[in-house]
């Protein structure tokens, strides 16, 4: 059994088309994760103890349970609640929700990195809590944690194949379909793996570059 380059070459257009679905799921999922994660991080810091505790519990629960099961859960349960979403949209919500829990911890680290003096200065100027968080704390807390958020972007990208379990035709599922049609799994699945590898190595290098620039920027 040797690698059939011609067959691999013929398969590539299909895979590239599927890669668009994968990238779209990643980008949309990350948008959900960034927004929802910030909301969770703020709720976690809330002065209302019930809100802070239940948020902490929710984050812990989401982080400790498999994304695949969460995807199934949403996929089967949302229609029953009257929410009719496509498989792709359900997948995006699941990815976003799962990574929101991780992102909220990153934001939290960012908040914790803000010196107490900044809060005190804002109080001394009699700024409202809303204004303090929105205009003073968040703008300072986020830039240092951008690389950590970037790492989760890459992690989410690598988790998108799980959407194949609810019939989303993303990269892996497309590779599998090609394999099933032609009885040759070697080329399509190896290509899928190679595409993931190349894209995550490039992203990881990009994040390292960003990290270096951020350090310079912070140092200035």
């Amino acid at each position: 059994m040797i690698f059939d380059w011609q067959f691999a070459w013929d398969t590539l257009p299909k895979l590239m088309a599927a890669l668009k679905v994968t990238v779209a799921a990643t980008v949309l999922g990350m948008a959900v994760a960034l927004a929802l994660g910030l909301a969770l991080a703020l709720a976690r810091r809330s002065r209302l103890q019930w809100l802070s505790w239940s948020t902490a519990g929710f984050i812990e629960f989401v982080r400790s349970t498999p994304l695949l099961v969460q995807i199934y859960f949403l996929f089967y349960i949302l229609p029953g609640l009257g929410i009719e979403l496509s498989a792709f949209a359900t997948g995006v919500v699941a990815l976003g929700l799962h990574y929101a829990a991780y992102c909220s911890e990153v934001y939290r680290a960012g908040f914790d990195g803000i010196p107490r003096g900044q809060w005190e200065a804002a109080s001394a100027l009699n700024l409202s809590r809303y204004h303090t968080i929105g205009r003073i704390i968040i703008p300072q807390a986020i830039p240092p944690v951008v690389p950590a958020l970037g790492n989760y972007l890459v992690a989410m990208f690598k988790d998108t194949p799980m959407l194949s379990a609810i019939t989303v035709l993303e990269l892996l599922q497309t590779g599998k379909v090609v394999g099933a049609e032609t009885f040759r799994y070697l080329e399509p699945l190896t290509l899928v793996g190679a595409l993931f590898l190349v894209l995550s190595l490039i992203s990881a290098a990009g994040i390292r570059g960003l990290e270096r620039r951020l350090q310079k920027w912070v140092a200035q």
Partner: protein
Amino acid sequence: MNAINNFGPPLLGGLAVTIGITLAAAVLAVVAALGGGLARLSYYRVVRWTAAVYVEVFRGTSTLVQLFWFYFVLPFFGINLSALAAGILVLGLNTGAYGAEVVRGAIVAVPRGQYDAAAALNMSRLQTLYRIVLPQAALAMLPPAGNLMIELLKNSALVSLITITELTFTAQLLRSETLRSAEIFAVVLLFYFLVALCITGAFRLAEGKLKKSAPG
């Protein structure tokens, strides 16, 4: 509570398989992490590079892609793994690749002076590694190892997609029989959460013990 009464027993069977797979993969992961982490610090360039390729490939591709590749592609090379063997192998090697970075980081963090002191006492390289470096690195490795163990537990759900009847797969079977998706998957999520709590607890305990036996 009704859901647990109805679906509990069959799901418990699946849970046992999940725990078994997770533990087997964890053993493999520890071996791979120690081997990979040490190899990345080897004197020999070939060994270092081989380990780097292992780590980058397993960290750079999707776990599910790896699983399918081992299950569907390896037979083309004449290697026929059972679903269970492929599942344990991929979960173990995948977690081991992340673990190798943990091991490497913890070893590199042991101060240079410790190596000097061991050399000044004329200890061999192997003695230095086992008696001086690894015990100190172990404490630094434990918390990230606990996190990796939970990631491993979560990833074990993926083997349901290559037909292993573990917790998630059992849930799918029950769902197609009863159509009570919400209850079933709620119970499944709860089971995973409880196991994760146990893992966290066990690692905290181990950390406490290790700290006590070597304060400072």
